[in-house]
């Protein structure tokens, strides 16, 4: 079916072409700008972290201390039976630092009342997954704590 009149005048078509070419220039120039803004500066995590045995001795049973793992905060807890466990202190809900409560033997996140048990499993409140567990091994006269992805094998929580 041939139309009697064109839907678009020649002039309008031309103006459209002009705006299209200007838009393409804008997009061409916008690409470096967008790449510039989305710069993932990969902050590397250390392969492992060592703590002297002398400092480890100071951690009494049923208590916890913090340590730094690269940019991650870590929490090292000595259970009542004397076993050492290390976790990332970041709550899996919205990244607040957790605290260890010796009376209930749980990790508590004060931001939204989240609870994790001694093995790091999320037991109450909004946290959706367990605390990231580090491996703790004694090598010579230091305790070596390793991130599951950086160095050690992935540790399954109970």
């Amino acid at each position, binding site marked *: 079916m041939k139309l009697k009149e064109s839907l*678009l005048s020649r002039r*309008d078509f031309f103006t459209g072409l002009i705006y299209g070419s200007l838009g393409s220039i804008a997009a061409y*120039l916008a690409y470096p700008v967008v790449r*510039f803004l989305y*710069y993932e500066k990969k902050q590397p995590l250390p392969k492992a972290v060592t703590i002297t045995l002398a400092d480890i001795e100071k951690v009494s049973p049923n208590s916890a201390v913090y340590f730094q793992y690269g940019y991650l905060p870590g929490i090292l807890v000595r259970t009542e039976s004397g076993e050492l466990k290390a976790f990332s202190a970041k709550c899996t809900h919205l990244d607040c630092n957790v605290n260890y409560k010796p009376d209930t033997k749980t990790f508590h996140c004060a931001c939204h009342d989240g609870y994790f048990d001694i093995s790091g499993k999320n037991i109450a409140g909004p946290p959706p997954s367990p605390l990231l567990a580090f491996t703790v091994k004694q090598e010579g006269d230091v305790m070596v704590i390793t991130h599951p992805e950086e160095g050690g094998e992935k540790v399954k929580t109970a």
Partner: protein
Amino acid sequence: MEEQKIQVKKALDERFMLGALIDLARKKLVPVHKHTIWYYMGALLLILFMIQMVTGPILLFYYKPAAETAYQSVAEIMVKVPYGWLLRSVHHWSSNLMILIAFVHFFSTFLVKAYRRPREFTWLTGMVMFLLVLFLGYTGYTLPFDERAFFALNVGTDMPGAIPVVGQYVLEFLRGGAQVGAHTLNRFFALHVGVLPLALLAVLAIHIILVQMHGMSIPLSIEKKAKDEKKKIPAKPMFPHFVWHDAVNGLVLVGLLFTLAICIPSELGSVIDYLKPAPVGVKPDWFFLWVYQILKWIPTYVLGIEGEIVGITGLAMVAAVIFCAPFVDWKSQRNERSPLFTAFAVVSLTVFLVCTAIGFFF
């Protein structure tokens, strides 16, 4: 298609009074004569300013404005951040082009005496913006806090110290103390990123409104010729003709800008060593070479007064005459030829070009 266009126009008009604005815009005519080319400078400056207002805050995402971190953050922008070298170079070259075109715009309006009645305040706001743009350029290249920036900071903040009476206070205000240090960088950062751009925006708004109000100034010679030949000066509408002209000029300018940015990317000097002597051949950036050269030529003592004070006071007096040109050049206020001021303009242009060339090559 036509009905949709009319619908859209009606909708916008109802909400934003677009119809009234378009009527106003359609009435704007731009005179067409042999000096029309100088009319394009303003739009070019506006385009460059908009480029600066985009690339500047973008660079701010990664620049760390403290004495300890500034240099490394600029190095990171150049090396690590994707297209960081490109955006920094674009920002740098855009500032150079903006200052160059500002000089062209200044000298062209000065020579054709566009400051005549009723455009005195357009001239004044323009002169204020000229100073702001020069100061923006100066504060900008001190931000990487490399060796060159350090000497620029030292010399540039020392010169106002020569002003009689208030010099020391101005110097300490600019430096944030008696010596150039971390505080100075913070101040220059605040000036470059906050104070000066906002001031420039405010004065620019007034300047643009005044230009729209008064329309384009026509040089006296052209007006006279038209009166003598009893012919009307041809004029074309701003919309769409001159908007398209500005668009083409802007596109070529952007092309030139990116060519310069890619072929001659910005440099980063060496790290500051507070105890090193000034490197041989240290010079200010090109737009201050004329001041540098003039101050170099002035003898240490002129008639018993320190040469530096004479130099700065002399330059200040010339600047004052140029600032007040609309009020001092009463011949052109009466729309008569003013050969004295034309000569003054030609002499200052020559001095500027010669001193800049000598400062650059020797």
